């Protein structure tokens, strides 16, 4: 219970900073907003804003979807599209997904050329890392697959946002996500591509008690809220990276 008060106190403090936000996010999402900050611009997305038409391709594995009949509607790609549409009035936003569970980065790269040709996106959101960690794929091969995927997207004229694994406290002693998360951060820096730190955001939620990620629940409510927040924060992340001049993040960069 104490944790909730801490969160509440943080929200009161953080409140004024969000007063001007056009689409008010639920309080739970806002707690982690400061972690969803891009360090690199997204020029193709900026161009798409100007052309009033934004196509986004989400490529991912099982943690980019939710089970059940309304899973696709509530998973973060659909929530991203909704949040972008709410924020970007007058711009036609379309999010296409290629999401299949249990795929490694290398497997996704194979599907990438066809996906890119079919959708011609301005932005590729690439969620990966979990399956590679579970299968203990050679970290070198993982990094090389990331490089290949990013290069393929760039040469198809799309920006890339990397999205890392979920924070999953129960399985922490079984899946060595750390190495792969580090590799993604390193590749993102080298390629100058923004990294959406889903892992860090979810860990903060867990530490603050915003969402009980240890919960043994079988219900979908927490999962849906998490995906909703990820979609909303990702939308802010993309918009801020595409319009750096309107939301200066840091004087030095």
């Amino acid at each position, binding site marked *: 219970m104490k944790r909730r008060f801490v969160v509440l106190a943080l929200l009161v403090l953080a409140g004024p900073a969000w007063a001007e936000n056009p689409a008010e996010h639920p309080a739970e999402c806002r707690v982690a907003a400061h972690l969803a900050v891009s360090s690199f611009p997204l020029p193709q997305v900026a161009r798409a804003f100007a052309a009033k038409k934004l196509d986004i391709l989400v490529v991912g594995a099982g943690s980019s979807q939710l089970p059940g009949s309304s899973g696709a509607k509530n998973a973060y790609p659909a929530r991203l599209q909704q949040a972008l549409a709410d924020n970007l009035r007058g711009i036609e936003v379309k999010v296409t997904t290629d999401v299949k569970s249990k795929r490694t980065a290398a497997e996704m790269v194979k599907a990438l050329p066809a996906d890119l040709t079919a959708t011609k996106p301005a932005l590729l959101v690439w969620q990966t890392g979990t399956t590679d960690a579970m299968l203990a794929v050679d970290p070198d091969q993982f990094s090389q697959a990331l490089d290949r995927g990013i290069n393929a997207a760039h040469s198809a004229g799309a920006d890339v946002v990397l999205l890392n694994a979920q924070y999953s406290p129960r399985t*922490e*002693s079984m899946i060595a996500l750390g190495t792969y998360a580090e590799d993604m951060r390193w590749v993102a820096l080298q390629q100058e591509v923004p990294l959406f730190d889903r892992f860090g955001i979810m860990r903060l939620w867990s530490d603050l008690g915003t969402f009980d990620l240890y919960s043994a629940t079988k219900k979908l409510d927490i999962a849906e809220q998490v995906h909703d927040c990820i979609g909303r924060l990702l939308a802010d992340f993309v918009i801020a990276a595409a319009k750096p001049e309107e939301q200066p993040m840091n004087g030095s960069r």
Partner: protein
Amino acid sequence: MAPVPTERDLRLDLFRGLALWLIFLDHIPSNAVSWITIRNYGFSDATEIFVFISGYTAAFVYGRAMRQHGFIVASARVLKRAWQIYVAHVFLLAIYLAEIAYVANSFDNPLYTEEMGVLDFLKNPDVTIFQALLLKFKPVNMDVLPLYILLLAWFPPMLWLLLRAPSIALVSSASLYVLMWFFEWNLPAYPSGTWVFNPFAWQLLFVFGAWCALGGSQNLARWIHSRTIIGLAIAYLAFAFAIAMTWYFPHLAVFVPKFVGDAIYPIDKTNLDVLRIMHFLALAIITVALVPRDWPALKSRIFWPAIVCGQHSLETFCLGVFLSFAGHFVFTEVSNRLLTHVIVSIAGITIMVGVAALISWYRQAERKGGGPRPPAARPGFAGGDA
């Protein structure tokens, strides 16, 4: 053949004990206390210390056995030790399976459908358990013992060579290391990939430790104590420290010239990167310079907790792995606050020391033969564990 010192070097026990503590701290997922461990301040970590000292003590103990009782008897003892470690590994695996099975049965959150796939192997235990017994399937953080088993299983012929032609033995070990880099040799793992600790690479440190134990360190003494070498070692440690800081403070990264970054990254732990070996050697040189063999403090009470852990390294290591599982369990089930991290870390090390002290007391009691029946275990490992 240089004379081999007959008294056990307490520095080895001290630093192996400390390495075991660091490995325990590093093995608890997201443990805040692991900030103090050496992996955060340079290229190498506690694994190098552990493997080097294990090679040193193995040569010290079994080298004497091989001289006194011949190749066959000494080999049998080495293989018996490898077998004990294998049994310990399987025991830890059973505990791990229990933990996983518990999680699989009690946790079905739809948010983590993908992550729960890691438990799929419970559905076909016929394959997984066989792969685990073949040392191909190794759960997270359970890679050190399989490496140790393999290094020991392959040690008898190496020890034979080390006793006859130490230089040739060391050169052949280094050649194997170089060939491994050229041909990218490693052993396959299950379900994919290769061994996290490549035995073709890590054998070099083990053999180097053994070589030092069998007289090599006396030959090196002149070099180790030269001011130039010590100066170079300090400079290298400072360089590694500066690089390590850029991992935690990314804005410092701009001070690393691009050619330096291109030259050093990635620092490969699996294949025991040369930068890691050099970092370990630099640490060892500084340590030897600062801590003389006959330093009185080694027999004081301050260092006793670490020394006693180092003297019973297999038991302490296994206990450490178990305690890191238990520590993670406390984090997930009870509390994940900083204070809990500190308490769990201190409690874990205290338990390790307590159990090592208990084993130490029991072995002494057994050797005195005070029990009602004759001791089952002969003091076959004179000088402690290898």
